[in-house]
């Protein structure tokens, strides 16, 4: 395809969002379906065009007419932003497909035309961020993205949503403010210069100004990406949105923040100072560890997924930090592997997290609750759906042969390979990162097994769960497509690495006598396809042997062994009990408080008592960091409010004083 055709394709996808938003507002019943179908079509066109841009040689510039539509700005898509554009389009297709049957069940809760319009504008904003070529455009679309997602968080109008929404609004605007300030410093006060020329401006900055700009940008992008300790809004806001919007927020919006961060780090600054890489690595590790620990503790399925997003974004920032460290120390191979692992994990995370969030929507609509404690037994009632969710959960835990495993393997293998011949300082850092990474991977499996097993296995814990039935194909298909995507991402990793430009990480090698394209990181080859073949071969052989050796018909169904007293669902392990060992082992950092209140039934016998257990898991970050900040600010505001004495002359005097001070500072 020619560059012009691709540019038209991207433009159609871009403007298609506006069209879909307009259609959504038509007050007719068909507007809902038409609007979402338009979203699917436009995103499909965008996906195809973006994939061609990735595999092509250069980026595309959108037609000049577009320039006049939006603040006289050039829109371009280079190979780097095209990766994220393709990701956004892909997830957009899945979520819009899901929105059609999903939202029709919630006509009482949501205003369909508002939700559809906001979703379309939300995707439009994210596309705009990727297409923007200067700071002004970037920030304008960034705001469209933030504001529409805020309205989507509060879409169901409940008190909980409003609280979460306002927390999100405050955090996102603090972040946006930091971004604008950071960009101002970086571009030397000219917000209209092209991104490609920012490097010239930033090269002339003093080290202190550069550091300040980077710190502001790290806070801005980090708070959007949900890095600990700027993450408090994320587990509140993401679960409150409709499930397909949660998928967009967790799957794509966080990646937009990652894109912005990478765009600045890789293309806009001459190099980053030592302290900056350290901070990136430390924040990444903190996010990964706390994200996964809270994911284990949590009982609300959507919050588990939100915390798992924090963990995954943490891993990505660790990878970026290692890439920065490695390129500073001159180990180019490690740096390259880490960057491509970041991008690969970003793609894989978007897919499996979308699949899981969409599945959580289906689960919630079946049991009418987000709590794991009222689920259970769903696998018996929705077998096909449960298999898809199980596979997605295992993919989320970076199990082979899925995409996330490939990303983590690439990163870990590159680190292990580099251990022998890097500087002592980097060795120590890599060993620590490797240890924590292993810890996080292990606990991620815990969180995901808990997510799947407590919701789907054993006996149903509520009457709603007991009456669940296999969801309609419309509900199943998007999750299944996400599963297929994350599987293909694993199997065709070598080919995809080549398309993404990581030729150095792929090699033609001879594995087990078969020549093929394999992943090749620091001297080690991995052929993902072979892993799946081996797994299928082993299990297939076992199935065959079982059929040959034993009599399959010799089988009967009977109740679970119960020691003579019937087992009720109340005797099952709950989600709280399942994670008890982790809560106990990490009580130093988690500070969950278990309170058991025993009320004696017979006053004379303390052993016969009805016991009530409450478990309070306070967010340490909120209590220790945000609460003091909040009370401090309120105190200051209280002192300042004494100025408000009702005399107009005094106010005018203050305005004058402010003007004079400003002029003095400015001059």
């Amino acid at each position: 395809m020619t560059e012009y055709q691709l540019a038209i394709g991207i433009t159609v996808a871009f403007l298609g969002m506006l069209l879909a938003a307009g259609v959504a507002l038509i007050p007719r019943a068909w507007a809902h379906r038409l609007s979402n179908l338009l979203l699917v079509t436009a995103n499909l066109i965008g996906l195809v065009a973006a994939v061609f841009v990735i595999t092509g040689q250069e980026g595309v510039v959108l037609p000049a007419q577009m320039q006049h539509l939006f603040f006289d700005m050039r829109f371009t898509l280079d190979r780097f932003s095209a990766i994220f554009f393709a990701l956004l389009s892909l997830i957009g297709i899945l979520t819009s497909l899901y929105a059609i049957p999903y939202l029709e069940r919630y006509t009482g809760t949501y205003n369909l035309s508002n939700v559809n319009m906001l979703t379309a504008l939300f995707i439009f904003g994210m596309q705009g961020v990727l297409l923007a070529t200067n700071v002004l455009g970037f920030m304008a679309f960034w705001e469209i993205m933030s504001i529409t997602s805020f309205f989507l968080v509060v879409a169901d109008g409940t008190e909980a949503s409003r609280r979460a929404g306002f927390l999100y609004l405050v955090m996102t605007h603090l972040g946006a403010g930091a971004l604008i300030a950071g960009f101002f410093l970086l571009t030397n006060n000219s917000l209209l210069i092209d991104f490609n020329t920012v490097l010239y401006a930033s090269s002339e900055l003093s080290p202190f100004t550069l550091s300040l700009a980077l710190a502001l940008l790290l806070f801005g992008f980090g708070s959007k990406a949900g890095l600990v300790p700027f993450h408090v809004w994320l587990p509140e806001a993401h679960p409150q949105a409709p499930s397909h919007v949660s998928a967009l927020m967790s799957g794509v919006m966080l990646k937009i923040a990652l894109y912005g961060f990478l765009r600045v780090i890789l293309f806009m600054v001459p190099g980053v100072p030592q302290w900056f890489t350290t901070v990136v690595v430390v924040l990444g590790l903190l996010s990964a560890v706390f994200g996964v620990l809270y994911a284990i503790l949590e009982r609300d399925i959507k919050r588990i997924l939100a915390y798992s997003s924090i963990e995954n974004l943490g891993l990505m920032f660790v990878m970026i930090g290692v890439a920065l460290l490695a390129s500073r120390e001159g180990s180019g191979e490690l740096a390259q592997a880490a960057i491509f692992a970041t991008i690969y994990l970003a793609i894989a995370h978007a897919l499996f997290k979308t699949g899981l969030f969409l599945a959580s929507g289906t689960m919630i609509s079946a049991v009418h609750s987000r709590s794991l404690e009222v689920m259970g037994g769903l696998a018996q009632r929705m077998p096909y759906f449960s298999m898809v969710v199980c596979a997605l959960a295992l993919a989320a835990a970076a199990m082979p042969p899925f995409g996330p495993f490939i990303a983590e393997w690439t990163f870990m293998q590159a680190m292990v390979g580099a251990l022998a011949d890097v500087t002592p300082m980097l060795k120590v850092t890599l060993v620590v990162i490797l240890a924590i990474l292993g810890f996080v991977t292990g606990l991620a499996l815990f969180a995901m097994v808990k997510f799947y097993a407590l919701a789907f296995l054993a006996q149903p814990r509520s009457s709603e769960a007991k009456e669940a039935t296999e969801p309609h194909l419309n509900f199943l298909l998007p999750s299944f497509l996400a599963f297929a995507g994350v599987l293909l991402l694993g199997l065709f990793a070598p080919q995809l690495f080549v398309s993404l430009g990581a030729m150095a990480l792929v090699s033609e090698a001879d594995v087990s006598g078969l020549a093929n394209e394999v992943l090749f990181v620091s001297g080690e080859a991995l052929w993902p396809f072979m892993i799946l073949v081996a797994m299928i071969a082993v299990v297939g052989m076992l199935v065959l042997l079982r059929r040959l050796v034993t009599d399959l018909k010799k089988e009967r169904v009977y109740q679970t062994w119960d020691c003579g007293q019937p087992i009720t669902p109340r005797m099952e392990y709950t989600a709280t009990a399942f994670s008890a060992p982790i809560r106990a082992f990490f009580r130093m950092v988690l500070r969950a408080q278990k309170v058991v209140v025993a009320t004696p039934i017979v006053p004379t016998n303390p052993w016969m008592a009805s016991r009530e257990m409450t478990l309070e898991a306070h967010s340490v970050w909120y209590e220790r960091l945000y609460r003091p900040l909040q009370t401090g600010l309120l105190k200051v505001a209280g002192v300042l409010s004494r100025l408000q004495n009702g005399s107009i002359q005094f106010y005018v005097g203050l305005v004058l004083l402010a003007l004079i001070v400003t002029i003095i500072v400015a001059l």
Partner: protein
Amino acid sequence: MNPLILTLLQVIVVLAVAPLAVGLVRFYKARLQGRHGAAPWLPYYTYLTLLKKENVISSSSSWMLRAAPYAVLGSAVFMAIVLPLVSVGGIAASLSNFILVAAILALGSAFLVMGGLDVGSAFGGMGSSREMTIASLLESTILLTFAAFAVVSGVSTIDGMISGDALTAITVISDPYLLLPVIALILIALAENARYPVDNPATHLELTMVHEAMILDYSGPYLAMMEYASALKLTVFMLLVTNFLLPYPLLLSASGAGDVVLVILVVLAKIVVASFALAILESTIAKMRFYRVQEYLTGAFFIALSGLALTLLSTTLL
């Protein structure tokens, strides 16, 4: 020898001796405790009997109960195929990358855990919760331990770490700093196989059990598969640990038909010695209270970490 034959020989030998390893440990333990004990080959008979018995499926279970035995046994068989246990340089040697092996091991544990939860009894849930905790906290230790071997040998496939040749082998004697990673590997093996001091494989008491609690509701062929999987895993770890201590003689591509008998005898000797050592250990120490297992896991983690640090230090200085 052809790589295919090397792998086939290894798989046949390991699959064949697995029940013997479990039987031997029980036999030695019985003798150490002053009992006569059952014959070491009783497990062969037990598994064959179980295969003929009726399969009872819990009414509250889903497809997971049926999938778990295949996944758990599959994970163990995968280890027996790819790891260098009897032969080095087999056809699947390229799949023995330690990160992949750790993941497959974790995958097996995950299915064991989900199978345990599926029947809905409190026993299964308790065992599953404990097993998941142990398996997930061991992950880091496994990675660090093998990373140390990878640094010394320069390759990340476990197959490449064990050369199987007396001249080029990396042993604890040639590189003494590998002692710590080997100790860490032994601690991993004990925890992964649900042995003392993490779990007591002999009891069915809810206070002590991890592994047994999860397979309580399996019967007939599925129970045979689960039991055989744990026997196989034990054998794999016994051979892996002994191979890291004494990486020869193993079957190589250069070895002839005459070596096969010798190597099989050596493998049997390794199993006999390793099960005796395990029986001695299990007869002399007590099982830990579960909520103290974190101390064991933390200890293993720091041994592995210091092993890697010492290895890096030594290879940099020497």
